[in-house]
């Protein structure tokens, strides 16, 4: 047993770097994957739509914990010894893509059908139609649910401790096991999570106001 001191506090703050790295991986991977899923999910091609429905059902319907577990231990069994970071990247990206894809599909469908029809009448192709007409309008509605999900995702990175990451929550557990000060340690862990999530919400509020101005009629 040892005292909780400056050294232990530094360890906690230092462990938060993994939370940040993993969250960035999940945001970027999920952002790209989610956009692809959302576009295919709203495409005219039935096969693409069907495939994306299956993808979304699978990754929304299974726990992230199991996805991480299978990505790391499952692949190792079949001879692909994956680095934990790669396994986390795969699982977090697939998980975030499943959710963001479905959120953004809803936002794309919320743009009035007349907008699409009008741009077809103007002779805009699919790419230009999405880029200049549909997505900018969808983005405005997309901000609040997207940020809500990202905040949740940041906290869910704590599940990566199952495959060996010592991120913020896990470091808290380890330090608690030697200091026996759970209230202090977990209180600090919660405060550090808050310090990471709150700025996200602030940025979201600003973006929302900006987008509202841009699309005001």
């Amino acid at each position, binding site marked *: *047993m*040892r005292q909780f001191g400056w*050294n232990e506090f530094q*360890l906690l703050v230092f462990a938060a770097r993994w939370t940040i790295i993993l969250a960035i991986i999940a945001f970027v991977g999920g952002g790209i994957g989610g956009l692809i899923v959302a576009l295919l999910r709203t495409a005219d091609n039935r096969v693409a739509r069907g495939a994306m429905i299956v993808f979304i059902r699978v990754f929304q319907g299974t726990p992230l*914990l*199991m996805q991480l*577990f*299978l990505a*790391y*231990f*499952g692949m*190792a*069994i*079949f*001879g692909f*010894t994956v680095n934990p970071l790669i396994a986390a990247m795969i699982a977090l990206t697939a998980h975030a893509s499943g959710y963001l894809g479905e959120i953004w599909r809803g936002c794309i469908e919320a743009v009035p059908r007349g907008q699409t029809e009008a741009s077809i009448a103007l002779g805009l192709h699919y790419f230009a139609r999405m880029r200049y007409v549909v997505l900018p309008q969808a983005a405005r509605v997309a901000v609040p649910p997207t940020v809500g999900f990202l905040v949740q995702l940041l906290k869910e990175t704590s599940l990566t*401790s*199952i*495959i*060996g990451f*010592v991120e913020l929550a896990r470091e808290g*557990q*380890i*330090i*608690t*096991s*030697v200091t*026996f000060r*759970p*209230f202090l340690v977990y209180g600090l862990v919660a405060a550090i999570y808050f310090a990471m999530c709150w700025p996200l919400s602030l940025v979201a509020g600003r973006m929302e106001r900006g987008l509202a101005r841009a699309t005001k009629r």
Partner: protein
Amino acid sequence: MNAFRKALTIVAGLLLAAGTMSAHADAMQDIEAHKAIKVGMLVDFPPYGLMNEQNKPDGYDADVAKLLAQDFGVNLQLVPVTGPNRIPYLLSGQVDLLVASLGITPERAKSVDFSEPYAAITIGVYGKDDVKVTKPEDLAGKTIAVARASTQDTAVTKVAPKSATIRRFDSDAAALQALISGQVPLVGCSNVCYLTIQKLAPGKYNKKFELSSQVQGIAVKPGEQKLLARINQFIDKIKANGELDKVNEKWLKEPMPAVLKKK
């Protein structure tokens, strides 16, 4: 058994099945060829496994692992694992062996092969002085805290009557906190944890009854006979030359328990 543990057991079983299908190279040869050994150990189970002030794995298990690597003449790489994921780490080949305070139980012996014991813990039920419990039947209608997926979890689950409530926590520390903050009157834990209870709240809690004394072994993947024989040779050596006694004195402040001496 809770859902999470059940799911892990199922997945571990699948991994085992897949693992035995693919014929694997001899682990002992791998270790000698790479001149390195990957050892999984707990880091939240003091004094057996912990992170020291330098944030490096340390403790009884770490010292045994260091002696083992020295004896094998290879470099040591300590891999921190947790209680629920240590067996998957071993079966999927992410570590060569576990010196992870893994109690030798018939249940676990189905999925891993154990060496001779290298450590022992006695576990029991502890609680407030005024709680009258002397045998498992007395747990009826009472609440008892344990660390999830631990040996004491299995032992308490086995002996507790149906009307007892077992509250499972993520770690011993959380279970002890529940006891000390008064959320539960009883806890199932080891002699080691009891020392901690005594430090935090001296004289308020005592031992109700002993569940078992649990010996711990070094675990290897099933069928790694050569590696296992070499580990047993190492354990015999450190028991005979007093090095294991020193490790016990250092971390547990008592000589090697008698249960380790008999063959």
